[in-house]
């Protein structure tokens, strides 16, 4: 299969069952909502070392936020439910509550809920106020610029993480252009985030190492500088590989994002689109690249 002259490898991306939550940060203007969202999703590229994976889903217009102020929607993913509550409380507490003018609302009607505002309320030192409206409980925590309003509980639901595809290009310049185009298109898909810097991974990994103390190491088969020293999967013409990892609320949205991204990445100078997997031995989902375009 080829798209715009670019080979689509007959392989699959191996993805995993995760848990997700979504929350809306609003603020006095878009600048401050985005500032808080950037901070809350910082150091959240991979559950391996960061505890969660998170990203900005998109801007939320003022007339769509609960308080009528400009907002940003954030998605966060963890391997387990227990880890989700801890991540939400820590991140919202340390990076949203601390940011001027923000408020934080649940954005997911999940079957299960975790306490976020319900835990952060104690920061109010007894002066916090609870408000209940239309079944939604809000906490008002007195802070120095007025009050931090945060919803008591956030919904969580099963989700899919680790969807991916690799872009193999003839040089760094064209490969970077291809992934940037892909990311721009994928931002239009709701329900997904690409948690790595700019949505892109340059240091993809494999789940083994020559060192006993390491769980993962560089993806040697896709590293161009050591082509001749390893069992490389890179054709002769390929001198650069970049990867996009996708986490989404369900398999369908991950597939949609992969399809949209791959199409956008198929430009002149790109040799092949591939995907990362573990032979189907680890993940619960196998997303075949060819199936995306049938």
């Amino acid at each position, binding site marked *: 299969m080829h798209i715009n002259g670019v080979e689509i490898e007959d392989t699959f991306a191996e993805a995993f069952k995760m848990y997700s939550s979504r929350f809306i940060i*609003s603020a006095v203007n878009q600048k401050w909502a985005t500032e808080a969202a950037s901070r809350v999703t910082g150091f959240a590229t991979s559950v391996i070392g960061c505890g969660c994976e998170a990203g900005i889903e998109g801007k939320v217009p003022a007339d769509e936020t*609960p*308080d*009528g*102020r400009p907002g940003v929607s954030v998605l966060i993913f963890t391997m387990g439910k227990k880890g989700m509550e801890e991540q939400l409380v820590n991140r919202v507490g340390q990076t949203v509550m601390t940011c001027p003018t923000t*408020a934080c609302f649940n954005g997911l009607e999940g079957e299960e809920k975790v306490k976020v505002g319900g835990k952060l309320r104690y920061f109010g030192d007894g*002066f916090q*106020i*609870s*408000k*209940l*409206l*239309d079944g939604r409980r*809000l906490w*008002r925590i007195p802070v120095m610029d*007025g*009050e931090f*309003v945060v919803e008591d509980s956030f919904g969580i639901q099963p989700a899919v993480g680790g969807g991916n595809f690799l872009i193999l290009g003839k040089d760094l310049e064209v490969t970077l252009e291809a992934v940037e185009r892909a990311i721009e298109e994928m931002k239009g898909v709701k329900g997904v985030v690409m948690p790595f810097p700019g949505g892109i991974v340059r240091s993809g990994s494999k789940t083994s190492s020559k060192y006993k103390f390491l769980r993962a190491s560089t993806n040697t088969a896709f590293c161009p500088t050591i082509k001749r020293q390893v069992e490389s999967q890179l054709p002769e013409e390929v001198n650069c590989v970049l990867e996009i990892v996708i986490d989404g609320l369900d398999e369908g949205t991950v597939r949609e994002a992969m399809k949209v991204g791959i199409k956008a990445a198929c430009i002149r100078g790109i040799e092949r689109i591939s995907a990362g997997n573990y032979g189907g031995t680890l993940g619960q989902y196998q997303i075949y690249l060819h199936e995306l375009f049938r």
Partner: protein
Amino acid sequence: MKEPLAIPVEAEFICPDVFADKNCREIESLPLHHGNRERRLGELFEVHGERSVRIMIEGDVSRVKKIGYGMTKGRIVIMGDAGMHLGAAMSDGEIIVEGNASDWLGAEMKGGVIRIKGDAGNLVGAAYRGSNSGMNQGMIIIEGDSGNEVGERMRKGTITIMGRAGDFLGAGMTGGTIIVFGRIGMRSGAEMRRGTIVTFQEGDGTAVPLQLLPTFRYDCTYHPVFLRVYLKTLQRHGLEIKEEYVTGNYRRYNGDIVELGKGEILVYEPGA
């Protein structure tokens, strides 16, 4: 109504939960207390329809008490004035009154929505005497004025009054929110422990200074973000809310310091 009433009627069986599984004859046979006599509903009302959770009442039922008492589902529409204890203790469903409502509207309700297109009497959403808690959840919207002791001892419900409120608004409140667009009366928030009273002091152009109890202390003037959520919700209920109320600042007074003192009165500050 078949005939005007000179003596009040106790009619707690006029309720969607009761009508839901009854045919017309069974509904007509439901008992009512008319003064000191027990009568049948069909003697006082012409009944049409059956087995429904939607009830429409035409005529002046200002002397019919306890309509919708304890309801948990359905809808009641009253095309006239409604009597005392309308929707008291209800936990879900909706009541709409095209006219006025009397005292004890939504007393101790636990959920649902009541909307009054005209005025309401005293003790809206209040606790019955001897009880510690008034309406616990749910929403009451009054598009006209209301009487005294509205929200007395309230908990977590929300009352919105587009007109004026009488005296002792939110007396002894332990939680909940009362929003009054018109003027509030004397001794608002007396013995308030927790909860929120919001007032915009809309009037007829005459300058009437707001008088709060001396046991309420001014904290600051600020923009309460949580109030935006309330006002946006009221807009979704079809109420016209000025944009400056949503975006504006409010003077915050905490009290009543003769009690716990964690209640608040927020007063809209025009042009701040």
